[in-house]
């Protein structure tokens, strides 16, 4: 392999991580939410002694088990993929990043593993209360797992609580609480789990609606639907609240991502929020085309949401790339200069130290510290590299938010019709419910698109771009594993869907 890093190696590595992450994320949200729905149903069973609730619990648990297995299968890859395909990243930030992953294993994985066996197989082996406890602990375990991995991801978006150690040539943790309790992390965790609960609720409602459409198990279906709808309305409302919180964090800490989310090229004060927009197709950063073909905005809303101040200046892609001295925004080129200075300073620091030249070493160290803030920019070749894929991020964001609001409205509809009317007669609503299942999955993936595509080219915001983060491999190796995963995961997905739909058809066991 020649000495210059092959860009296609980076692209294939990114593609592989995106593929494996998206496949994993296909299954995780349902697990996170349905475990709580099941726990709630089982609590009602234990409290009332009603066999109908036991039956309901066991049915949803069967579906959960099918989903959980493939969630595990797609998850193990990710744990090791940081090492296999992103080894330079693992070295550069592993001192901070490794800890949440290890804690996830110790604290969360073992909790779910230990009690899931009881949950599935212990119905006749342990008492009712112990079994119920096992179900709740499994639910808590899965969610704690989400907590730690999201703490890790949040740290990528907004690195905090660390410093760069030039002697060990890596970032090192300074303050664990800053990492764990970072507002970005907490907001991200809450938004992610509550959106997962929303998906799980829609899934339960959709499957229940199918039973109603087939005129089967009506009592079971209506009750499950009601449980899920209440769980869903609480979750989706809080999802919206935390979504706002997340966007606020993004505005503060990842302004380029926000600009891409809004398709905002020219920054402005009193910025309007695009409620409905169509981007000019094929628009490139440096052509002079209008960014939007259609742009319906609520005035002042963007500034308000981003900075809690209608008059606040919201930087656009142009401001962040070419700089805006008035607003104190440096140009990307300036940052790249500083980054290159920092990288060169690190090199001369290490060489001077080795040679025993203390004076030169100290000089280099000072230069490194002065410029470290933009260290990652030194690896970029072109200021335009700092711009994420605008249309992908923009549309994903719209889809996610639009669907999010639809889900809130949808839950209210279900709650109303189950309680006030006879929901079994509202076949239009039942069909809508079934149709809403794929919508939930689309919204769920769209959210991650925003989060991860929006942060490109950064694997650690401003500190390390993806080009510097990969493992030293042949592009062909990554291509091979990419396609291996495509084949394997797609096959497993097909198998899972077939098994799942059959179990649904079989329905609750007598």
């Amino acid at each position, binding site marked *: 392999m020649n000495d210059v890093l092959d860009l296609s190696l980076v692209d294939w590595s990114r593609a592989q991580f995106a593929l494996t992450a998206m496949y994993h994320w296909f299954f995780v949200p349902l697990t996170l939410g349905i475990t709580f729905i099941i726990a709630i149903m089982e609590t009602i069973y234990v409290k009332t002694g009603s066999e109908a609730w036991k039956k309901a619990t066991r049915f949803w648990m069967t579906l959960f088990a099918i989903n959980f297995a493939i969630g595990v299968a797609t998850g193990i890859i990710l744990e090791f993929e940081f090492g296999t395909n992103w080894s330079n990243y693992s070295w550069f930030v592993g001192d901070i990043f490794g800890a949440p992953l290890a804690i996830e*294993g*110790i604290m969360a994985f073992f909790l779910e593993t230990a009690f899931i066996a009881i949950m599935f197989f212990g119905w006749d082996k342990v008492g009712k209360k112990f079994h119920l406890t096992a179900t709740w602990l499994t639910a808590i375990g899965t969610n704690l797992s989400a907590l730690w991995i999201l703490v890790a991801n949040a740290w990528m978006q907004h690195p905090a609580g660390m410093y760069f150690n030039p002697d060990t040539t890596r970032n090192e943790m300074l303050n664990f609480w800053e990492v764990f309790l970072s507002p970005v992390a907490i907001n991200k965790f809450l938004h992610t789990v509550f959106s997962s609960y929303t998906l799980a609720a829609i899934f339960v409602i959709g499957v229940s609606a199918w039973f109603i459409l087939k005129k089967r198990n009506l009592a079971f279906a209506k009750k499950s639907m009601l449980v899920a709808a209440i769980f869903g309305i609480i979750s989706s409302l809080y999802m919206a609240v935390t979504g706002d919180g997340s966007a606020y964090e993004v505005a503060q800490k990842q302004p380029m991502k926000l600009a891409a989310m809004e398709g905002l090229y020219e920054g402005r004060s009193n910025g309007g929020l695009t409620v409905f927009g169509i981007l000019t197709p094929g628009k490139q950063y440096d052509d002079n085309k209008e960014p939007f073909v259609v742009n319906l905005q609520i005035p002042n809303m963007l500034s308000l949401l981003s900075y809690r101040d209608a008059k606040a200046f919201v930087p656009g892609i142009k401001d962040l790339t070419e700089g805006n001295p008035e607003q104190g925004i440096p140009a990307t080129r300036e940052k790249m200069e500083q980054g290159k200075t920092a990288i060169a300073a690190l090199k001369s620091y290490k060489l001077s130290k080795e040679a025993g030249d203390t004076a030169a070493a100290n000089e280099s160290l000072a230069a490194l510290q002065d410029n470290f803030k933009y260290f990652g920019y030194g690896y970029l070749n072109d200021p335009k590299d700092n711009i994420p894929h605008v249309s992908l991020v923009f549309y994903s964001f719209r889809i996610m938010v639009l669907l999010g609001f639809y889900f809130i409205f949808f839950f209210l509809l279900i709650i109303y019709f189950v309680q006030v009317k006879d929901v079994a007669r509202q076949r239009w609503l039942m069909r809508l419910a079934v149709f809403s299942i794929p919508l939930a999955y689309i919204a769920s993936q769209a959210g991650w698109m925003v989060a991860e595509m929006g942060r490109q080219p950064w694997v650690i915001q401003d500190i390390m771009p993806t080009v510097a983060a990969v493992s030293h491999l042949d592009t062909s190796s990554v291509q091979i594993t990419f396609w291996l995963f495509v084949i394997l995961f797609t096959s497993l997905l097909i198998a899972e869907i077939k098994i799942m739909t059959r179990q649904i058809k079989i329905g609750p066991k007598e």
Partner: protein
Amino acid sequence: MNGTDTYLLLQQYWWVIVSLLGSILVFLMFVQGGQTLIYTLGKTTNEQKMLVNSLGRKWELTFTTLVTFGGAFFASFPLFYSTSFGGAYWVWIAILLAFVVQAVAYEYRTKPNNFFGSKTYEAFLLINGILGTILIGTAVATFFTGSEFSVDKIRLTNPGSPVISRWEGPAHGLEAALNPQNLILGLTIFFLARTLAILYFMNNIKDDQILSRSRKHLWYNAMPFVVLFLTFVIWLMLSKGFAVDPVTNQVFLEDYKYFHNLLSMPVVLILFLAGVVLVLTGLYLSLLRSNKHGRKGIWLTGPGTILAVLSLLLLAGFNHTAYYPSTYDLQSSLTITNSSSSIYTLRTMFIVSLIVPFVAAYIWYAWRAMDKKPITGAEMENDHHAY
């Protein structure tokens, strides 16, 4: 105690934890071993069902231990994680794929509308059993035999090619299988896993047919295991090892290094001997005693395995030894002092590790709740969540 002493203590602590997790993983790979024996020990569908379900209650524990082992290794020795996983790419990908297919196999094997058919999933279990054990064993053997890689942190300052660690062979890890010493450990783990599985089945399942077949196959697997294990250990004791000069931190080859380690660390020697004695005693009980004690072999061989593997891994990293040696460039070799996380991270993780006894306690509690009674044929018929 000054900062450096604390740091060294923490590094040693974490090497012990990583080694302990590794040794527990090897013990729990009785699941993998058992997966290769389903058709050997079970001749009727119901017998096979009992065997599958006996494993099915435990497979996740092994899986989770593997994942936690990886996570803990990453958190405490990130340079190992990045060098080994990013370098020996194909070995780790193969191991991962072998475990990915296991994760769905139990749940999907006998479900209706089974797109791939139960035979596919049984093949998955077989693949996981064979590849999982042999590859992990082969990978761990490279702790003693070395691999071809180089680490140079200054590479980070070259934007054109900033990756600090490079694997220096084109096979990216697969070449380990060509070294007979590595393969021997791989095969040792394979036969050990099967041996432990048989002992586990003898204890966990109440069925005369399975029991008598188990005794027979215990001979067929325990003997190769013992022979291979002895071969590996003797070879290891006679090998050159990768020693580190504590003053200059230079890595050099030393004759009989691992043997010297064993003698210099009497605690490890005792652990090792205790482990071997327990393993052999457990085997003796189950091979030669037909009374109820004959079914308890796992209680001795299991812990014995943990002690023996633990001591071998301690031999790899303690007493100024490079636990991940590079045969390409000796000075790129990884030691517990040059590849660990910062003192802050190790200390933070140390505090987290204090919950581990609590974790072990509830795992034990849950395990006992499920295994109060052994698996029987009748249970298979009545349990509708049975795999």
